[in-house]
């Protein structure tokens, strides 16, 4: 193994490859910041270019683009409340409020360091556990995945403080309902389309997230412009761009990062679970383990609340390479695109890759890791400048947010209907937000809706319509018991608080 790692390092650390990763990080960050263009699109755009290089260099360029795009996605989440990809939605819960308090640079720095630490720790887990974890990931069956989705949705407990549980549950159901629009994945029967062809493929994630986060945020800012309670705090550019993390904040991060990285990595290993569930679960768990004083800060700019999803998100990205490299099963859309690129290079991922060609296996892992290091070195000095986006006057910033939202949808679908639908959802979301209906549960449910139905379908069909699958397998039962425990604990804590 050591020999493989050293070969991987030697390959990744040549001058040409370091230059490639720098170029990749730069372009990845720019592409990732644009709504609708996440890591998957960024890598897909790079594939034709990488075929001009040898496999190692091509993969290194993709690694840079990948991590750059992930960081770019976090940047738009934190600064504009416009998460372009599901994995960075949870980042906006505390990142955006922190940026609104004039600490945009700090929020970006916390995100950058947490991502880096999450990636580093998961690389270590990968070193020691990749072969054995591939077996664990294969042992997950449909009932376990269904239970995991339920567990993911109980993360809503984290957003339902002070008697808002029912509102959060209503948003979960609304998210699942929106996800059910379009063709049924197995039978191709159309549902809730009302004979409108534009709805046949369902509603896109980018549309829902742009409408409920970016667009409704922009509309809320205009709506509350004269509200004395929401008057914008005047902050200096120096404060806005400051990336200094003080001792207290660092000590919070030291505690959050290890536990979130474990959750992120383990969830990332499961095919199909990915960074979104990982970041939501890490956020929910973090809220449950911190003290009451810190818990109150969640959703209002908590350091733990920002660090946890960012760490888990990146750890899950590394974790998703376990099934891809050891089994040849892509765990996410991004790894599916990377798998395609690997096959294009003539590299066949699977159990034999780790056994017979460890140098290729480790070259990929090392190049991914070096991509992360270079990203940190490149982007930390740029943060003060990136953060100044928030210093743009609201009269300009709001139309620009609306412009980016509409463009994100337009480049994806090229039809007017999606734009109208986005505006409609944004108006409803703005109204709901006025009355404190939380949007994160809606997004989480929307993301998980399809997967949840798919796994419930398989489980029920295999058990011939019986719900016994919920307690037939020990793993399913354990996950469900954890879910019940979280809900009971949440209610117990709210009763104690009263």
């Amino acid at each position: 193994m050591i020999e493989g790692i050293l070969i991987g390092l030697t390959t990744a650390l040549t001058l040409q490859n370091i230059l490639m990763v720098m170029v990749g990080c730069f372009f990845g960050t720019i592409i990732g910041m644009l709504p609708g263009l996440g890591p998957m699109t960024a890598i897909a755009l790079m594939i034709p270019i990488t075929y001009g290089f040898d496999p190692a260099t091509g993969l290194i360029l993709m690694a840079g683009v990948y991590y750059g795009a992930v960081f770019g996605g976090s940047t738009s989440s934190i600064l504009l409340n416009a998460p372009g990809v599901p994995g960075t939605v949870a980042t906006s819960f505390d990142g955006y409020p922190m940026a609104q308090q004039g600490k945009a640079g700090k929020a970006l720095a916390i995100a950058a360091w947490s991502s880096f630490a999450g990636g580093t720790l998961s690389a270590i887990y990968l070193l020691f556990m990749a072969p054995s974890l591939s077996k664990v990931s294969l042992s997950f069956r449909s009932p376990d995945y269904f239970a995991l989705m339920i567990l993911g949705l109980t993360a809503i407990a984290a957003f339902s403080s002070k008697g808002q549980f029912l509102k959060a549950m209503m948003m979960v159901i609304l998210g699942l309902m929106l996800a059910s629009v379009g063709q049924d994945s197995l039978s191709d029967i159309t549902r809730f389309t009302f004979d409108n062809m534009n709805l046949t493929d369902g509603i896109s994630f980018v549309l829902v997230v742009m409408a409920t986060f970016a667009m409704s945020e922009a509309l809320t800012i205009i709506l509350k412009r004269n509200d004395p309670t929401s008057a914008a705090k005047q902050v200096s550019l120096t404060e806005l761009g400051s990336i200094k993390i003080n001792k207290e904040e660092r000590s919070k991060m030291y505690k959050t990062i290890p536990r979130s990285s474990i959750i992120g990595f383990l969830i990332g290993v499961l095919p199909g679970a990915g960074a979104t569930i990982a970041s939501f679960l890490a956020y929910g768990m973090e809220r449950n383990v911190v003290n009451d004083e810190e818990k109150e800060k969640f959703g209002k700019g908590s350091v733990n609340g920002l660090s946890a999803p960012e760490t888990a998100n990146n750890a899950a990205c590394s974790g998703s390479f376990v099934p891809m490299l050891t089994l040849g099963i892509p765990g996410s859309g991004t790894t599916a695109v990377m798998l395609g690129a690997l096959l294009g290079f003539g590299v066949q991922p699977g159990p034999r890759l780790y056994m017979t060609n460890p140098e290729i296996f480790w070259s990929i892992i090392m190049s991914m890791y070096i991509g992360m290091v270079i990203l940190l070195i490149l982007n930390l000095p740029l943060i003060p400048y990136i953060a100044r986006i928030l210093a743009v006057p609201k009269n300009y910033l709001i139309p620009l947010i609306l412009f980016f939202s509409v463009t994100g949808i337009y480049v994806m679908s090229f039809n007017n209907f999606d734009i109208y639908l986005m505006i409609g959802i944004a108006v409803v979301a703005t109204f709901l937000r006025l009355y404190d209906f939380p949007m994160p549960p809606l997004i989480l449910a929307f993301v998980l809706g399809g997967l949840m139905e798919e796994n419930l379908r398989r489980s029920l069909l295999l058990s011939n319509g019986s719900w016994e699958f919920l307690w037939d397998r020990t793993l399913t039962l354990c996950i469900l018991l954890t879910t019940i425990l979280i809900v009971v604990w949440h209610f117990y804590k709210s009763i104690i608080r009263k």
Partner: protein
Amino acid sequence: MNINTTKIISLLFFIFSAFYLYTAYQIQVFAFDENAPFNARTFPIYLGYAGLFFSGLKLILPEPNTIKVDHKNLEYKKTGILIVIAIIYGATILKVGYFLTTSLFLFSSYYFLGERRWVLMFLLSFPFVAAFMYLLHGILDIYLRDPFLQSIGVMG
């Protein structure tokens, strides 16, 4: 009044869930799938009932936290204008083209939000959109339909 608004939203959600449930029952499934343990309408039916359950609970149970929204301080007019501009933008983007509609959308939005620095407004609309379009279309090779630019021969 504010308590009522939350209750009204819950009532609307209850009605919406009932409609969703009704529509779920109307989903046509294949004859051989009709009595299957799971078909295309199973999950939506569960969702419909869950929606009725949670919104029903919200309607019945007392409101623990009253949300106070002072409508007098809310800028409904400007928000409404911005929404109308966005709808017009959405309606014209395909027929007129990305460049002109986006530039006009940005320019008019700045204007209606109270901005009067004309040079800056221009720079942050027409040249800005042109640069952004070059990034997407020219560098990243993402197709952007633009009949207007095609008609004047700028775009192929």
